[in-house]
């Protein structure tokens, strides 16, 4: 093509371009791939190019895991209070309620997963970093009790930086509380599966997240007791590549499996059917 014959490019009027909604495009944090939002969403917010598992809101996870029209939210009215009169906690709570919704850092529902009755708790990192305060502990405890009452399996999906500092030692005690409920479930031989997503650290990883009859994790999720920054500070050296990722934990015997988000529902179903004495799905038998 000769440069001197190049046609003038017809420019779009500026007005029209402004009419494109600002959230039409999404960019993958890991590889920089830019795509229309819809494509990310249809892919469960996993990057179609590099498979990076981007964050999902609790309601989106619930929709992805629970059979259509079977999810019923429970304990939706529980709200955090400020038991210690902790500096700026009420303001932070108000902001979280406005930006991240009413469910606090966990959405709890009952419903069916591939037809199996389950109680599902999904943590929401958008609400104060998924931190576990009294409401998170109480919702898990009541969900667990509901599962015991109805003989449901329990699934908890974690995404949390740990205990909520603003509720002090009461947050710490939620670790004991949730573990106590899980011991009751275990006594009744009801299955509990823990799913770890990015990140699962601190008091959440050191309680229910690590107590599953099966523990699954999403690829690349950071999982650990202490955060990488704290460890780096303690040992005074850089952390090895891939330290505290789901794959690292799998290699060290801390997980049963690293599961792609697209296979999460079917994997949960398969595990639950084994643990609940249900027959395999027809397709699995044929395979």
């Amino acid at each position, binding site marked *: 093509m000769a440069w001197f014959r190049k046609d003038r490019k017809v420019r779009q009027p500026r007005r029209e371009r402004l009419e494109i909604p600002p959230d039409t495009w999404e960019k993958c944090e890991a590889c920089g791939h830019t795509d229309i939002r819809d494509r990310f969403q249809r892919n469960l917010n996993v990057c179609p190019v590099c498979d990076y598992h981007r964050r999902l809101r609790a309601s989106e996870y619930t929709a992805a895991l629970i059979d259509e029209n079977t999810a019923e939210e429970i304990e939706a009215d529980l709200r955090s209070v400020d038991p210690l009169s902790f500096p700026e906690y009420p303001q932070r709570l108000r902001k979280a309620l406005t930006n991240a919704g009413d469910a606090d850092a966990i959405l709890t529902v009952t419903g069916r997963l591939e037809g199996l009755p389950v109680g599902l708790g999904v943590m929401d990192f958008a609400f104060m970093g998924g931190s576990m305060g009294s409401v998170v502990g109480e919702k898990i405890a009541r969900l667990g009790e509901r599962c015991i009452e109805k003989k449901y399996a329990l699934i908890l999906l974690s995404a949390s930086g740990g205990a909520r500092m603003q509720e002090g030692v009461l947050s710490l005690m939620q670790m004991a509380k949730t573990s106590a409920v899980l011991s009751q479930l275990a006594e009744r031989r009801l299955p509990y599966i823990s799913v770890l997503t990015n990140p699962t650290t601190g008091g959440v990883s050191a309680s229910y997240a690590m*107590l599953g009859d099966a523990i699954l994790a999403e690829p690349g999720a950071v999982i650990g007791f202490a955060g990488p920054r704290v460890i780096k500070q303690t040992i005074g050296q850089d952390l090895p590549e891939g330290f505290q990722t789901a794959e690292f934990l799998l290699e060290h015997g801390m997980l049963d499996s690293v599961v792609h988000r697209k296979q999460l529902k079917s994997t949960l179903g398969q595990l639950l059917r084994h643990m609940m004495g249900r027959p395999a799905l027809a397709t699995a038998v044929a395979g």
Partner: protein
Amino acid sequence: MAASATLEFEKPIAELERQIDELKRTAGDQSLDVGDDLAPLERRLAELRSEIYRNLTPLQRVQVARNGKRPFTGDYLRLVFTDFIELHGDRAFREDAAIMGGWARFDGDTVMVIGHQRGRDTKENIKRNFGMPHPEGYRKALRLMKLAEKFQVPVLTFIDTPGAWAGLGAEERGQSEAIARNLFEMSQLKVPIIATVIGEGGSGGALALGVADRVLMLENSVYSVITVEGCAAILWKDGKSPEMRERAADALKITAPDLLRLKVVDEVVPEPVGGAHANHEAAASALHDALAKHLDDLRGTRPERLIRRRREKFLRMGAFTG
């Protein structure tokens, strides 16, 4: 951490003690009777101690709780118990000296004692990792609890740790799982458990010995979800300055009276005037009496009832509306 140095707010006490010692020495050298001079000084010392200790700020209590002169698990084992035989190792990886435990007798009866153990000097602190356990420490603790369950004797735990160790090996070997497992198993252990916070109760690393039928706290001990330094660093990007540490200590509500109010602990065990470090024997005696009372309360309770109540106790904890 210069834990065993004289605490800043205790300096007037130390100064008065020095004066009294000097007077006694001079009197001894010159065979003088200084009784009349000594009595007011000693009275003043007692007053000063009680005044200072009545008005401790939360941050000062943190300093007292961390004081290296304070009695540790090993000291209470000597002072409160008899016939102690230490058990070592998790049977999987290695011995972790940050947690100490074994059979002992309490008023003649066999019990299982498990506690964090700090060191008094640098050498011992290195051996004991400043009382910060690795996963194998918690797994050893669980092994001993299961042993106690098997032979149907009560478990007495002592909490005294800045927190679980944050390091490469600890993460590789599953620090989270080790702590979580203890919380889970302690929720269904078939023998009585009494936990006492004797110094610093630091987060999950403390709670891993803390799921009990009764939780006691020594008067000047603290129990917190995060260290005051960690809290100040996160909130105000300054974990070092005394002002910010003070703010964090106030905000977190970590003193024994705070925890009693929050219904996280059942009883505050009084310490001698001037703190447990001023008089190990008196501190041990008060601890003995509290343990005796609660052991007596729990004795004979059927395991199912014990477990149900223990779970209910922790299931009640928390504050929310709706």
